[in-house]
């Protein structure tokens, strides 16, 4: 009881609980035809938002907290998606060559670990680079992953892609997007909450303070006992794990993967989501993922011109609201406090 009281004493926890409650209520309302009339499309969109939230939160650990730019996170998304599919598909990868498959959730976890390992390997050279050199390296990494999955056609079926990706089921309870509508939504919601809590735990620990210290002042961080290289490697690995896991969830939801999903543009979209929502906090990636995913769907008809729209978006955000949308609430509360304080004085 004491503990429950403690949880609700903080405003942040209260907001978090309220948002989660609302997200649980959405399917209830949808099933009772109050909103969206049980639309499968809306469920799919909500799942996508959740998946992008996990990915963008992962990017936030490297970009928002550790202050290292990455334009190549779609590469990790790719490792997670292809890794999980090749481990769980009966006709491809492990199933094709060895005749055994992993159950889809275990395959996602394994692929995410693989992404983390590759993230750590990438961070070895990356830990020596800053700014534009680092962005070039990460772009090259993204391109490399894309070329690997596009050209090893025997393993990945090249640009044709892999269809009939197995669906996640736990103890015979199936999470798919075809026969049941909201199962996958709750699965994604569960993982979003889990990953956000883990992120919050990390950034409020000694490790997270090390990340922020590197972002703020590398020299001083070093002088305070932060091993810059190993912290950067850790940051990249954690980040890659998040994005890899999101990639796995994506593959098993959509049921089809091809290299086109993991192009450079996807990395740019992750950055756009993060900058739009606001980096270096919990709510930013959630807001960014939600808004940009909806906009992306709305702009479907513009096809390639969408990147132009994102470019303008990023420009506006960087010029006028560098803290992102989540920074607005701080600005507003600061404004109210200032004007209120003026009256009192």
């Amino acid at each position: 009881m004491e503990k429950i009281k403690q949880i609700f004493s903080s405003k942040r926890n209260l907001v978090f609980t309220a948002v989660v409650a609302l997200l649980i209520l959405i399917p209830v309302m949808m099933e009772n035809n109050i909103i969206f009339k049980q639309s499968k499309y809306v469920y799919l969109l909500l799942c996508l938002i959740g998946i992008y939230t996990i990915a963008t939160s992962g990017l936030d650990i490297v970009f928002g907290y550790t202050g290292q730019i990455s334009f190549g996170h779609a590469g990790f998304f790719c490792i997670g998606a292809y890794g999980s599919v090749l481990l769980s598909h009966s006709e491809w990868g492990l199933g094709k060559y060895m005749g055994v498959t992993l159950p889809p959730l275990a395959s996602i976890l394994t692929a995410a670990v693989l992404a983390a390992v590759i993230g750590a390997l990438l961070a070895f050279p990356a830990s020596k680079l800053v700014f534009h050199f680092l962005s070039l390296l990460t772009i090259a990494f993204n391109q490399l992953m894309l070329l690997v999955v596009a050209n090893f056609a025997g393993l990945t079926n090249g640009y044709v892609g892999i269809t009939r990706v197995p669906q996640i089921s736990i103890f015979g309870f199936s999470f798919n997007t075809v026969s049941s509508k909201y199962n996958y939504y709750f699965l994604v919601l569960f993982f979003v909450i889990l990953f956000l809590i883990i992120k919050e735990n990390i950034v409020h620990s000694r490790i997270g303070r090390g990340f922020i210290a590197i972002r703020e002042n590398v020299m001083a961080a070093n002088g305070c006992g932060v091993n810059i290289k190993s912290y950067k490697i850790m940051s990249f690995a954690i980040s890659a794990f998040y994005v890899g896991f999101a990639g796995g969830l994506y593959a098993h939801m959509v049921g089809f993967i091809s290299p086109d999903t993991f192009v450079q543009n996807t990395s740019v979209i992750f950055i756009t989501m993060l900058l739009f929502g606001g980096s270096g906090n919990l709510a930013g990636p959630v807001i960014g993922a939600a808004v940009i995913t909806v906009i992306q769907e709305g702009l479907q008809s513009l096809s390639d011109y969408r990147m132009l729209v994102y470019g303008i978006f990023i420009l506006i955000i960087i010029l006028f609201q560098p803290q992102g949308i989540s920074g607005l609430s701080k600005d507003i509360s600061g404004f109210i406090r200032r004007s209120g304080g003026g009256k009192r004085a």
Partner: protein
Amino acid sequence: MLKVTDLTINFSGLKAVDSLNFEIEKGEVFGLIGPNGAGKTTTFNMISGTLKPTSGAVELNGKRIDGNYMYQTNRLGVARTYQNINLFRSMTVLENILVGQQSRLECGLLAAVLRTSKQRKEEARAVEKASEILNFVGMEQKENSYSNSLSYGEQRILEIARALASDPILLILDEPAAGMNPTEKNQLADLVLRIRKKGITILLVEHDMKFVMGITDRICVLNYGKRIALGTPAEVQADPAVIEAYLGGG
């Protein structure tokens, strides 16, 4: 406890520090002075691990520390402040001091992810210790202020507090009094002496002669990277070589 032997560094031909020798005893306040460009900060950087000396050695209690990374030297018990303030600007005063404790905290990533009871206890202790340090330096009122909102003098004190957070045996202060007004300088002198009372050895560079002469036990004078004098403040002040270096020879 700190022994510097034949310390030399070449910057593409220029010997910024040339065969420097000195030894600091445990518990003393040791000053390093000299005209601008004499190589004081360069010496500091070689001791703390920012620069790797061309030749020579730095030993801490008999253990070589030259060529270490800064984080390794910090773990061994050497903490420093900087001539140009290097604080974590978007962090609060308390958080700055928590980062300062990095070397002394043990819980790793897994403990952080799971928020184990050991990790939570360690965090609580760290916050408590940070508050104690803030009390010690007299900044307890500023605990939740952002470090970039502090005055210049307060930022310098916070750097010292952050260095103290790593439980150093040797504290290196690079021009701690720069930019301070006389009142702040007096408070700083008092703080340095209180830190020394805790048994922490102090090595400092400072331009304010009155400040240096007042608080140091021994002083080493550098000019053009070479040691020109070493002794108590009174001895150094009377040394003709020092007078010539500062006032210029006729």
